[in-house]
């Protein structure tokens, strides 16, 4: 997918573990993994909101468009 979810960058900046992140956002670790490795097809606004709240950032910090490589 040409839209990349940059969770790992924001997690590293806040030194938050994936486990803590998934628990505070209310996602399963499996779904966090799907977001991280770019296999997600769609994200609810409520999920995006929770991620922004937990990471104290804007949606633009999490979502990035890149040119499709394939």
């Amino acid at each position, binding site marked *: 997918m040409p839209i990349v979810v940059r969770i790992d960058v924001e997690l590293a900046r806040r030194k938050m573990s994936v486990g803590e992140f998934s628990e505070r956002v209310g996602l399963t670790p499996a779904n966090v993994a799907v977001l991280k490795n770019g296999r*997600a097809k769609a994200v609810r606004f409520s999920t995006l909101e929770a991620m922004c709240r937990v990471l104290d950032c804007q949606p633009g910090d999490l979502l990035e468009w890149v040119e499709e490589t394939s």
Partner: protein
Amino acid sequence: MVGERRAVGALRLFLVLLFAILVVFQTLSLPGKFAYMAKESPDLADLRWPATAVTVFWVLCVQVVIVCTWRLLTLVRRDRIFTPAALTWVDGIVWAIAAAWATLLAVFLYVGFTADDPGAPMLLLLLLTGITVLGLLMVVMRALLRQATTLRADMEAVI
């Protein structure tokens, strides 16, 4: 949903009952009836076995629909009705109705050309039209199930 569970339970009960009644028809009532009719009117005696075969086949078609419905209800209970697995059983229902329709059409044409009063052909025409409506309704429902399956798959991909 509680209402849905109760309805599924009741439906299953009556499907078993219907199946049992159909087995009685298939093995005792229909062969017996045509044997009796052949004895009463010997000029129609050569129709005994074709008539028995065709009516038993129709009952078989209804039984296939019952079994497929039962499987679909199992999927409903497991919340797996909106998966490709459901389409297999819906196809079974559609094909059973199609087979019954085709044989009914053949019987209608045969009776229509040989009957000397319009009673039987009219009754068969009513049945044929009814089964056509039922079959086409199933085709529409199948398409709707397909759409719902796609929607469910899309929704499940949303995180």
